[in-house]
């Protein structure tokens, strides 16, 4: 349960924590746009600028004193996606110079058997490996390697040619996704939900002209973010309570698992309905009226530091655009 990083705020007093939420959110948007504006290509300039951007983002992380490991943990859920895109890019881009291959890959009785055996082995051993993500990469590599070395009793075969363009593109997309994930998780790690709420509200304000209920949307967003950790805690409690009644989420068969999930889902639903009703009442009792004009306890004042931040972010964007244009 602890590896869900969305919506977690890590208390701290670095400059990133103290940055005005509007500026922080806006700079994030600028940096994200910059990340996506770097053209997907295999030239060295975009790749180089992407690496520079990644270094910048890692520098930001270090200066915010959020443990880098915690940020990288946010990548875990998408490791599969990352690997998948990497492999696809690697095999399907066939321009530029061939750097490796051609490799003849055989789908044969022996290689299929070997792959199945290996996957079983992988599933058993992965519990004991510390660097699980590296182990996963290794496993993907071995699956292809087995196809290359076991041509016996062949069913069908194909060739893999790895071109430098493909390698560069694959690496590029890999870096881009990593960059986006780190940037966005950095925002939630260093911004309290109330601040985030204010930032979103302020940035969406122009939409008010076209009658979009901005304050309502911002409140909904911030409440949702606020309740992710709470619901996780409740879920953990229910899991423990059901475990005390013999539900074993680890040592059970698939058929048992279905009824176990139900024993978890229904109580969590009941609790979240009850909680939201309580919350609604508590808000109303304290005078919350939808659409009414509200004042804040904290006034946000933009300081020199905020202006510098946004200038630097804009400069990064300008540089990226400049590199793209020439």
């Amino acid at each position, binding site marked *: 349960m602890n590896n869900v990083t969305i919506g977690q705020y890590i208390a701290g007093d670095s400059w990133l924590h103290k940055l005005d939420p509007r500026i922080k959110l806006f700079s994030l948007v600028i940096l994200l746009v910059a990340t996506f504006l770097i053209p997907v290509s295999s030239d060295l300039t975009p790749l180089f600028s992407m690496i520079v951007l990644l270094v910048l983002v890692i520098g930001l992380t270090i200066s915010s004193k959020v443990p880098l490991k915690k940020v990288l943990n946010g990548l875990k859920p998408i490791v599969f996606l990352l690997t998948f895109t990497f492999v696809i890019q690697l095999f399907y881009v066939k321009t530029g110079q061939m750097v490796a291959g051609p490799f003849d890959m055989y789908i044969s009785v022996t290689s299929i058997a070997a792959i199945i055996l290996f996957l079983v082995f992988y599933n058993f051993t992965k519990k004991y490996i510390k660097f699980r993500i590296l182990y996963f990469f290794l496993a993907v590599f071995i699956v292809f390697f087995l196809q290359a070395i076991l041509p016996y009793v062949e069913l069908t075969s194909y060739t893999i040619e790895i071109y430098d363009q493909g390698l560069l593109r694959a690496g590029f997309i890999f870096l881009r996704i990593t960059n986006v994930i780190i940037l966005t998780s950095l925002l939630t790690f260093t911004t309290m939900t109330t601040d985030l709420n204010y930032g979103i509200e302020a940035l969406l304000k122009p939409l008010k002209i076209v009658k979009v209920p901005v304050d309502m949307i911002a409140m909904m967003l911030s409440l949702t973010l606020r309740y992710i950790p709470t619901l996780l805690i409740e879920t953990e409690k229910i899991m423990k309570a059901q475990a005390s*009644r013999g539900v074993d989420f680890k*040592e059970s068969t698939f058929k048992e698992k279905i009824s176990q999930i139900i024993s978890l889902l229904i*109580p969590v639903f009941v609790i979240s309905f009850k909680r939201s009703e309580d919350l609604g009442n508590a808000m109303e009792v304290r005078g919350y009226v939808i659409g009414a004009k509200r004042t804040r306890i904290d006034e946000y004042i933009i300081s020199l530091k905020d202006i510098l931040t946004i200038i630097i972010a804009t400069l990064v964007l300008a540089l990226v655009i400049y590199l793209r244009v020439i």
Partner: protein
Amino acid sequence: MGIQFKDVGYQYKGIKVNYDALSGVNLNIAEADEFVAIIGHTGSGKSTLVQHMNALLLPTQGEVNVLGQILPPRKKEKINHLRQKVGLVFQFPEYQLFEETIIKDIMFGPKNFKSTEEEALEKAKKAATIVGILPELYEQSPFRISGGQMRRVAVAGILAMEPKILVLDEPTRGLDPKGRKDLMKIFKDLHEIEHKSIVLISHDMDIVSEYAKRVIVMDKGHIVFDGKKEDLFEHPNFESFHLELPTPLKILKHLEKEIGLPYEPKYDFDSLLSYLKEANHE
């Protein structure tokens, strides 16, 4: 046998620092005929301690021996069976109800421990009778009964597994005085008639003094007192535990000071009343 803690420590992992929830805990709880109350302030490690008793948490230091099974277990050792032998009732257990009918919900525990449908039904009916859920409620939805009844159904869900040791985490929290008394009577009967060991966390000193035989006081993850309740309430350094006295003892101390009634410890209201009547006659 029973439950033994040997120099047990447990750390919660924080983002930057680890936080000691338990340290250096040594404890012995017999398999039968114990009624232990665990008291202490919020955050003193009571809930963490009891969650070790049915292997929901595994000690990060030292070891726990639960009915012969050593925790943390060696690789491949299954520990799920411990949860049948040591029944743990959580705080606000009514939130764990989920089935369509009350009786099905009570049957959920036994069925998880490989009872057949008929066995589970029989066990469930027995448990429902113990907690006083009437047969006409069996087919009702557990979400349509009162809070007190929901609590009983949840407790029955644990009792239906027929645990040897019953662990209760603040079972009376949020109940009215009558509900509290009724629920405690169930546990008292289980203890006296079936000689089950009961471990109880409570903030209510009146309940502790009336029902428990032995009291464990916890503070900041350590056990600071472990002994008979008589010894605790007469402890010369009682103030150092930052606990309140149970109401009957408070009354008696007050009367001794105000009207010179000789102090004699009484741990529940009934014996207090008869003592006062006796004193009145003399």
